[in-house]
């Protein structure tokens, strides 16, 4: 009984796409569509990443923070939990959980620097209060497994160390989607390796087959990622703003 992914709360909490893609009734009342919902989460994932660059924390903290944020909105409405507060608070909490603590006042400072928009301004006190709410919304499940570790092991095993950079980038991009809530991290890593293999014309079907994983799932994840890249091209600031405008405040 090792403390591995398969015994973790993360594994037990994996969800179906249908469970993740649910707009909270309160948000629906405000006219929020599923598309808006996804856009806002994407926008917030980007926000967390930008903020993290400024306060200088590792990618792992970013990934954990985004996962927290996405988990929160499986259960809570954006109406009650303002994403503009939830996002930095998730980064704050993730920095503690990943042993790279960032002071709340530093976070507040950089938020001000990044956004002149009043709607993004929050005080330390508000972040600390939201932290408690988020902890509760997460039911104190703070451990998140990420594809990164599996990725480097798998790349090595596949003899694809040269593909570290592009696949790492692909994995980073998967946090712009809800994949981490739905699939085990090693399958996400495999899907990224699969995409990289196809792009590089590297023939490693045999390697994939030997892994004894369900290649259908891997290919489906890969398709989702590619679909996301396609639709991502069509996202404009206007669309994001329109979605954000449906939020309160």
């Amino acid at each position: 009984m090792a403390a591995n992914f398969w015994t973790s709360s993360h594994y037990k909490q994996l969800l179906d796409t249908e469970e993740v893609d649910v707009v909270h009734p309160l948000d629906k009342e405000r006219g929020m569509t599923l598309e808006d919902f996804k856009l806002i989460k994407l926008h917030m994932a980007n926000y967390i990443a930008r903020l993290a660059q400024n306060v200088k924390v590792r990618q792992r903290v970013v990934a954990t923070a985004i996962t927290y944020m996405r988990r929160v909105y499986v259960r809570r409405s954006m109406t009650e939990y303002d994403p503009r507060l939830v996002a930095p608070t998730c980064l704050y909490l993730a920095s503690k959980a990943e042993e790279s603590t960032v002071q709340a006042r530093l976070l507040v400072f950089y938020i001000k620097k990044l956004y002149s928009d009043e709607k993004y301004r929050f005080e330390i006190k508000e972040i600390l209060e939201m932290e408690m709410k988020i902890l509760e919304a997460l039911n104190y499940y703070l451990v998140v497994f990420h594809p990164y570790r599996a990725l480097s092991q798998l790349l090595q095993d596949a003899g694809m160390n040269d593909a570290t950079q592009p696949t790492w980038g692909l994995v980073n991009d998967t946090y712009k989607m809800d994949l981490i809530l739905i699939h085990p991290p090693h399958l996400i890593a495999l899907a990224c390796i699969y995409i990289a293999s196809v792009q590089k014309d590297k023939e490693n079907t045999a390697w994939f087959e030997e892994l004894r994983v369900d290649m259908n799932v891997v290919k489906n994840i890969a398709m989702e990622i590619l679909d996301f890249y396609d639709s991502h091209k069509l996202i404009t600031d206007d669309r994001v703003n329109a979605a954000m405008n449906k939020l309160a405040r």
Partner: protein
Amino acid sequence: MMAAAANFQLNVEESRAWGSRSIECFEKLEQIGEGTYGQVYMARDKKTGEIVALKKIRMDNEKEGFPITAIREIKILKKLQHENVITLKEIVTSHDSNKYKGNIYMVFEYMDHDLTGLADRPGLRFTIPQIKCYMKQLLTGLHYCHVNQVLHRDIKGSNLLIDNEGNLKLADFGLARSFSSDHNANLTNRVITLWYRPPELLLGATKYGPAVDMWSVGCIFAELLYGKPILPGKNEPEQLNKIFELCGTPDELTWPGVSKIPWYNKFKPVRQMKKRIRELFRHFDRHALDLLEKMLVLDPAQRISAKDALDAEYFWTDPLPCDPKSLPKYEASHEFQTKKKRQQQRQNEEMAKRQKLQHPQQHARLPPIQQTGQPHPPHWNGHPMNNSQPPLPSHHQYGKPPGGPSRYPPDGNTSGYYQDRGGYNNTGPYPTQGRGGQPYPGNSAPSNAPRGATSGYGAPPNYSQGPYGPSGSRSQNSSGGNRNQQYGWQQ
């Protein structure tokens, strides 16, 4: 832990909001502890009737929100699922109506005792198979932690909980931390209760690993055999000095790199001392001594690991560690509420002791229960090893005063746990070894005690007041007992 997981599943189904449950789901029964972290309560789950322990999370640093120490503890406990590690069942909150500032409680499985409380129990003496059984479980649990890259950093008797099935579990991960195996991160050296703190931390090391816990295990192991803490320093310099008096002074030869540890020059021993473990603990059996010596190695790099300790001859030679289930069941050790009753009982016991000393032969066997009319029957209604007793209802002792003799039918005593003690005259605090071993030095034979003279090793153990010495206490700092002194370690 599967049960806990199931509980969480239930939570998901029952509360649509998916948040944590409210403290209202529990009925607080009594306070059972008061640690550095806050209060611990025994409570009953109103729905299931299950008895649990509630540990309040102290929100002391309001500037930085939810304490990172609590986050660590929660993360670590949710990660570790092992029979020798305490199970965190869930976390519940209480809401203040006006503001979002309630209390947060961690809900643990309830354990009846802790090792210190049990060891301090008046008159109670562990058997060798029992000590081996506890040590084995301690090492198994710790090995699991270390394999999962968790340092406990506060191993001591009061953090080793024991239930009435004889299971030992590591608890209080409030100081625990994940570590990476390369030991590259700088960690604080202000951890581990002073008496159990290893030399490298006292010398200011900030890069360290699982060996710190193994030092503490060595201290506990020796304490179990010796009958009292072996290194009771009053402050850090004295602690280090006591360690050097026992283990000898380190140099670059015995501990390569020691002179580069931050405070080595500050605490450098003035004079050379040689290792005296074997001399001071010469009455321990050979295998115990071998193992202890490997645990109390000054150089952490040479200190035995939990895994290797489990392979030690000690655990594989007669008498073998016993099955936890064969261990006697003891009345719950929580003293918080029953303190007064116990003081009363102690007085009575003192009287009984005096009587006994006058007529030692009367007690070649255990005093029957009927002799004490106190509300709390003392420990000696021991269970037979054959486990023929009906299992003790796990929470029966909390609601009402523990029952009388009927709870522990005395009839089984003939084949019982105490039989191998070699008679009551061997009033050493620890059992004789059942196989012709020498009795451990105790109050009745101080002349047998190892003479450590200056270092205090020669003093008879705690039990100088006899087997009915002051009863120990759980985590609260009893004014009389010195065992549970909390030291001002901060995170």
